[in-house]
């Protein structure tokens, strides 16, 4: 079964999802989903070990050879993304039972697990496939299930509003526009190259063809330019790059806590993975950064995004919304790292995918604990909570330090790479901006710390007690990991560097 590992990783959650609908019984469904998620995580670890050991792995679906059939292709970057997406998926699902009991109506629990597994399937599928159309199909699987997951917050949600429906619908409209743009881009590329396999497409884009009597490379044609424009805008929408982030704050705020933790930690990261694949594997960095000014564009947008989103975060009174704006800023850091197109910058971007997934996942799980006990995500309701829920708030503070980028946390590692990449290019203003934006992060994290530890609790929260241990364990698993990977960087930064070098190497 060893050689089937790539496809097993995808079909295990894909088979488990419909089984959840057939079984329905809540405890059994949870057991099934939990077992599947941890099994997928184990498979992802095995895949990463094999890729690091022996290089790229390919798997041909249906036994059809590569450019014709669908091919799964796993290199260091995809194995790394698979690892943390499946890891977050497993940890967040372990957290789920108490949280969804509070925030999702009981008769919809089996639907939650079904959609969660489908979303996981889609995200893993995007990462593993080497076929561009297959990637779009998985993107739709993950997006559609994400919309449904968010809308689950509409009934029995905390706080009691039906705004989750509007948020999910807004995300659906924006997400569909993004997906349509991506599909148009794929269609145009297919028209010009006659292939959907990414590696094959990369070769064919560099072939010389005769067009209207003159010879030129396929990637010099206007059609490919238009395709690239559609693809990059569509992907930017999906990854919530400023100013295309408008769907994100509401979606994260009104979704159930578990859903927010899972999506915030994985969905936008996987979209960044698509962007990396598009730039470095398909069209090549020379095309995206030298012929077209995507690097300047990414840099300007990400720098504006970092500042605007961080400042907006400072003024939020709803903590989930504050963290959502902080996510927009963090996507800015990742895009900034990509725009350097240097080993250091790209390593920073890839390692920040990983580190931010851990930090935001942990923070949103801590929010889940607070919601369970407080029934609110407002800053006002968090007054004095540091004494009543010390463990939860400690986890929150450590996660907050990670967001700021304090040394010994994972956030520091990413920022270190970004700043050294900026200095390497001699771009002092960029380095200064990264440091200044950390100060903005201090401001919004401090507001919560001040409320939680230095203010008196309102009377209605006198009875609040610490969250159950079964919820604290997954929270601390992620928060602890941010410290572990802040000190021990050979797995995270080491693998990210290898992935970055491989990406830059294939670029002609």
């Amino acid at each position, binding site marked *: 079964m060893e050689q089937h590992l790539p496809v097993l990783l995808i*079909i295990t959650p894909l*088979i488990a999802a419909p*089984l959840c609908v057939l079984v329905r019984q809540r405890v059994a469904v949870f057991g099934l989903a939990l077992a599947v998620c941890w099994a997928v995580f184990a498979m992802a670890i095995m895949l990463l070990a094999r890729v690091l050991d022996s290089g790229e792995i390919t798997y*041909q*679906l*249906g036994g059809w050879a590569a450019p014709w059939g669908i091919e799964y292709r796993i290199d260091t970057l995809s194995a790394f993304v698979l690892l943390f997406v499946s890891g977050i998926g497993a940890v967040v699902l372990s957290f789920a039972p108490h949280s969804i009991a509070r925030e999702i109506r009981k008769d919809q629990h089996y639907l939650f697990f079904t959609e969660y597994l489908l979303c996981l399937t889609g995200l893993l599928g995007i990462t593993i496939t080497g076929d561009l159309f297959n990637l779009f199909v998985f993107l739709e699987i993950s997006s559609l299930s994400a919309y449904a997951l968010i809308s689950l917050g509409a009934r029995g949600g905390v706080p009691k509003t039906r705004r989750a429906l509007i948020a999910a619908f807004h995300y659906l409209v924006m997400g569909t526009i993004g997906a349509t743009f991506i599909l148009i881009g794929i269609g145009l590329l297919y028209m010009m190259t006659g292939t959907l396999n990414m590696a094959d497409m990369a070769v064919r884009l560099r072939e010389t063809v005769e067009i209207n009597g003159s010879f030129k490379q396929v990637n010099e044609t206007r059609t490919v330019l238009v395709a690239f424009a559609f693809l990059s805008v569509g992907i930017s929408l999906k990854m919530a790059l400023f100013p295309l982030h408008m769907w994100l704050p509401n979606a994260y705020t009104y979704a159930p806590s578990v859903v927010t933790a899972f999506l915030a930690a994985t969905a936008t990261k996987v979209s960044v993975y698509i962007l990396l694949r598009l730039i470095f594997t398909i069209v090549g960095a020379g095309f995206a950064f030298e012929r077209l000014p995507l690097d300047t564009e990414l840099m300007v947008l990400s720098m504006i995004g970092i500042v605007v989103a961080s400042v907006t975060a400072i003024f939020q009174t709803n903590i989930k919304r504050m963290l959502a704006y902080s996510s927009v800023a963090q996507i800015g850091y990742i895009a900034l790292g990509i725009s350097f197109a240097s080993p250091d910058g790209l390593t920073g971007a890839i390692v920040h995918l990983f580190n931010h997934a851990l930090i935001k996942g942990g923070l949103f799980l801590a929010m889940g604990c607070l919601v369970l006990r407080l029934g609110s995500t407002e800053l006002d309701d968090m007054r004095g909570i540091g004494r009543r829920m010390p463990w939860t708030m400690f986890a929150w503070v450590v996660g907050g330090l990670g967001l700021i980028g304090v040394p010994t946390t994972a956030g520091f590692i990413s920022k270190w790479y970004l700043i050294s990449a900026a200095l390497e290019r001699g771009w002092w203003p960029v380095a200064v901006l990264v440091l200044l934006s950390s100060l903005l992060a201090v401001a919004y994290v401090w507001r919560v710390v001040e409320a939680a530890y230095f203010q008196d609790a309102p009377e209605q929260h006198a009875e609040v007690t610490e969250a159950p241990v079964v919820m604290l364990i997954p929270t601390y698993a992620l928060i602890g990991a941010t410290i572990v990977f802040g000190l021990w960087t050979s797995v995270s930064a080491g693998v990210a560097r290898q992935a970055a070098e491989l990406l830059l190497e294939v670029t002609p």
Partner: protein
Amino acid sequence: MKQHAILRVTSKVLIPYILLFALYVQFHGDYGPGGGFQAGVIFAAGIILYGLVFGLNAARIIAPPSVLERLIALGVLIYTGTGVATMLAGGNFLDYTVLQYGVFDGTVLADHLPQGQHLGILLVELGVGITVAAVMILIFYSFAGRERSR
């Protein structure tokens, strides 16, 4: 709709043929145009027509939502199950050629499609057909039943 005798009679005559045509498109899909998706939509159209003419409740009796929900899951399972079967038979996921040797004796008859490929695509399309039909009908129920649930 009680007073529309013509509508009631015509649809009663038409519905069996619509369903039959759906089955034709389903099982002839591997030889001609058609397949699971088209067949599923046509089959669902038959049920939806029944619901439009005879009322939502009548349609819910012949195609109960809880059954449909399970059918959606079942269709996906048939699809992925076929893939798993090919893996157990020694091939890659969804590699139907191994069914040629696993299920049949391995000889390819003259003037005949390879049986393994044939069986594989038939099962997969069956899964698609079941899921698509059930999803279509359920979407109709959710829109048509919106006022009622309030």
